[in-house]
């Protein structure tokens, strides 16, 4: 019998996936419902916004944002 699991499908590249996995581990495995493959993961609907915030924080630490280089006046 087919099974339908409600949730949010997240698509990202493998490096981000690793970060999501780490966040999941740090938070009692409270995010991920189903680990689909390297670039897809199903997470709980209620946790999406929280995950986004955590991911942003994590990225801020690890990725250096290069500054806006559009020409000045």
């Amino acid at each position, binding site marked *: 019998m*087919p099974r339908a699991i*409600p949730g949010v499908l997240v*698509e990202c590249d493998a490096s981000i996936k690793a970060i999501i996995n780490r966040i999941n581990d740090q938070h009692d495995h409270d995010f991920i419902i189903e680990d689909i493959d390297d670039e897809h993961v199903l997470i709980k609907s209620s946790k999406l916004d929280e995950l986004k915030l955590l991911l942003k924080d994590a990225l801020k630490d690890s990725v250096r944002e290069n500054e806006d280089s559009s020409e000045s006046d």
Partner: protein
Amino acid sequence: MSSTASQRALDYLEQLPGTTFTKLYQQPSTALAIFRRMLPHLAKNLVMAMLYMPAPFPIADLDAWIKPDSENAQAKDRALSILQRLRILEESDGRSYKLADAFARSLRLALTGGGNHRSFGVPCSTPDAKAMTVGWLDTFARQQWEAILYYVVGSVANATLGGEVQEISEGTKQLLQKGEFVTVKGSGARAATAITEKGFSFLLQEVNAQIWTLLIVYLEVSGELQMDPVDVLSFLFTLGSLELGISYSTSNLTPTQQQMLEDLADFGLIYRRATDTSRYYPTRLATTLTSDAPALPNSSLTATTTTQLNNNAANSTFDLAAQSEKGYIIVETNYRLYAYTNSPLLISILSLFTQLQTRYPNLITAKITKRSIQTAITSGITSQQIIEYLTAHAHPILRRQAPILPPTVVDQIRLWQIEGERMTAWRGYLIRDVGSQEDYEKAVQYAEALGVLRKEFRSKGWFFVSRMDQMSGYFKNLAARRREAMAAQAAASQSGRSSAAPP
């Protein structure tokens, strides 16, 4: 059938219970409006073909009527799916389709006229002593609507932009909060409103979609206020079938609808004098509710596509006011933006995603920067919305060239968005354990045809859909048929024959 406007209304209608539909379809103007506004083109032709058909339409005949290649089959599935979601089409005994009785009756009545439903509005029998001109109504509608937009956007922009903007009513403010277009922070006299993500995308929609977005919030709220949603919806659809520039009588409206008149006047959908409550004028915002025509003339490019044979005179007064809004933005390849406007509303909207630089009496200059775009994106505006807005309001000079906006700018805006976006997310349902490879293929195909398929993971035999209601129906049907087949097979093997298995 374009725009997000009908999609929004469709989403709302879909979640109504079946009995509400039956009640809604009692009214010919509603049936006509839903027919015209919500259905894909093929579905319309299908409905019309079936409307005067004496017997149900066999599914096999329908399949034979539509060209067999996959693209057309998909169009057919989409048409059928929407028809069924709107409870217009019923499957009778699994072999043929028929139209829902109430809907068919009302649509026939709409086409032939007659009956005593009075759903196309009762014009005032006595002429108005001071009849309103179309131009005046347009101005009124524009003022009211822009005041609402300005309230939404005004909560971000500083108040120093000037220009007189009228205050909107308390009820409308509450509605905007309910709809989460703005939030109120603080309390009492120091309360300040702040625009939300939804508010941003609301601002950048085209006017028709904005009206529907707001009206749907209104519908949701009206339920809480003990207003009958059927009454409310019916009245909205009636408004869509009225004629601009004619006054209509309020005498045959239900109490709920009388109550609505006040709110709708606040939105600028209708105009009613404070002194004379027995008549009301629909404005263009209302009469275009169920059509594709632009709700505010010249507010976007689409205004020019309606043939305006007889209303040259009516329009000329309005042209002056609208001139500034009909294509006023010039974007250069160096990310500079010039906007010929002095409207505080438009300036505020531009300030959402650009860095304003200089303001002249009829012109402002601004710059699109990474920071300005990313600020917009973090507050919930998508790059697509920005690009669409710039395209829709591009100055006629830009319009002469083939890609209207400079491609470098468009690409860069998209790139700036992607830079911040490291993941994409869809809400929906992951379906697994479908069964055999063949079952999986069929289920995926079905989902694809419905347009709900988001992603499939072939190697695992899973797939992801955005909505489940019809998929679960599909699986239930499949299971039922399986059981029947099993039972039939069991019966057949008992009686020693094996030809009874249905496909």
